[in-house]
């Protein structure tokens, strides 16, 4: 079984496309969440190998979600950003890596996980 992924983004269309892109590259998307609160619940329930989450969520910052999950000995978390503004914050909060949203693909995600 491939690497399981939880996708967290408030855009349903993005989640669907991301799922297809990642699954095309061998990842197994085990769940999706539209906000930070849902992400925390899904991470606890689904225990994915990696959490892929947007830096901006409707109920707060993806960075805050990462910071919260860090306390649980959570899986690697990769932050999706649309700007370089958040790279420093993503590093400092303990995220495994960060990827520009528009460049998301299986190989890019794998590289982000492996280079952490």
């Amino acid at each position: 079984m491939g690497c399981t992924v939880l996708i967290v983004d408030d855009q349903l269309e993005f989640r669907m496309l991301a799922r297809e892109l990642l699954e095309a590259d061998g990842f197994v998307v085990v769940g999706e969440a539209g906000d930070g609160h849902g992400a925390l619940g899904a991470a606890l329930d689904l225990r994915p190998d990696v959490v892929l989450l947007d830096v901006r969520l409707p109920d707060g910052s993806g960075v805050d979600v990462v910071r919260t999950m860090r306390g649980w000995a959570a899986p690697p978390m990769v932050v999706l950003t649309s700007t370089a503004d958040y790279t420093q914050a993503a590093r400092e909060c303990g995220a495994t890596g960060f990827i520009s949203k528009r460049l998301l693909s299986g190989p890019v995600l794998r590289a982000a996980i492996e280079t952490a």
Partner: protein
Amino acid sequence: MKRAARLPWLLVPLGLCWAWLAGRHQHDAGRPWTFLVSELVPGAILIGAGLIIWSRRPQNRCWRLLVAAGFAWNVGDFEHSTNVDVALGAFAFGRWQGVFLAWAALAFPSGRLQHRHDRLLVVTLFALFAARSLSRLFLHVPPDVAGYGVENRFFPITDDRWWRLVEDAFAWSYATTMLLVLASVTHRWIRSSTPGRRMLSPGLCAAAVLAAAVAYEYVIGWNAEINAATGLRIFYVVWWAHAGVAIALAWGLLRLRRSRSAVVDLVAELGHDAPPARLGDALSRALGDASLTLLPWSAEAGSYVDDSSRPVELPVDQPNRAVTRIERRGEPVAALAHDIALLEDPGLVNAVVAAVRLTIDNEQLQAEIEAQLAEVAASRSRIVAAGDVERRRIERDLHDGAQQRLVTIALALRLAETRLDGGTGPHIHAVLSQAVEDLGEAIDELRDLARGIHPAILNESGLGAALESLVNRSPMPVRLDVDLLGEPPSAVASAAYFAASEALTNIVKHANAHEVAVRAVVRDDMLRLEISDDGRGGADTRDGTGLRGIADRVATVGGTVRVTSPAGRGTRIEVELPCASS
């Protein structure tokens, strides 16, 4: 000065002609010029003092009384004329100056008789002098019989009993009336408080000197054996007395004028920074009235208030106390509770009223301006805050709307690209790859546009992260030092970020710098932001919109900007933003 107002100056040549004429008649009668000059001087002093008062205080009626006294004095100088008719007229109607001087002393300082008994005394004096004039016209005996005076052209009688009786009665009545004048002025002086006494003192001096001179001339001198030495002594005493009266009255009135000037100077000195309590104290000191109280009108309370803004009732029915209400267009402004003696000089009261009205007007105007400025500042802050909210909304809409859709489309294209079967030509792959690349550029441009509208990171990660992001995006290396001890308020953080962003943009565009530093520190509830470079300097806040924009933006949160930019030695922008530590 209007033409009519200059007419009193005509009294100068008129008085000179009058004096010359009187002197001429005396000279023709064989009097030496030295004696003539000495006799004419009191009249000149009286007229001169009157004209000085008129020139300084034309509204005061005392000047007319002094001028009238001066001319009346010189009328008597014609009694030695060789012209019999002139001499008789002067003998009968001369030396009325005492009436006018007593009137002036009673009416001092306003020039108006305030009390009924004072008016009665003046009428009595006029009646006495009229009776004496009639007696001298019709009952006087020739000088060879009386040894004094001029020939009686109307009734050449030889019995001088009636004339003597009238003259004696006049002398005693005149002296008695003058003592009553002195008593009236003294009574008014005694009843007055300290400032009132100071005001009335010149009038009291004048009345005392006048009464003493009249008593000496008409009682002691009249009944003494008249010889050359006695006559000369009487002459000099009366001369000095009348000169003294004129000088005392003129000095007293001019001193009052100085009091008014002192009030005006006081207001000018107090300027705009004169709260009612301070103004009241200053007026109290300037006028020497320790009891003076200034009670401003409070529109809110609907009454006069004291220093503690507590409503108070105006004092009424108190002896020696008066209340002057100060109004503007029928609306109360303030009230002055003061010694009643101030009312003796209406001009001084007017000056005080004008001073108080002016000062309180200034204070109210200043308060209104300050309130309007505060409202303008608050309005500007609200406009900026509303602008920030709107920019944040637009940025959010761009991010969540157009930007996300573009990202999604880019992903969709890339997904489509991965799913093209092998039969599709490389041309299609190239088109899709180009479309993805163009979309990427569009997303970057949109992101920059959104960041320019409002940096989302400022709200989501704070000023420190926003400054760091700003520095990282700068095309030149920037040293950053941040020590915020917590996050400043949103408006302050926005202003600081805007200032740093604008300053860095300016440096990149104009400074030609090699080293740039940004420092943000919060100490003592003050965010101090400093952006410095080693560029060419010479920046001027009056040129361009960059630095001015920083100053305007910083001012919306009560901050200040200082720019130091000597030519060739770099630029240092120091921004101070008040903020509560959070």
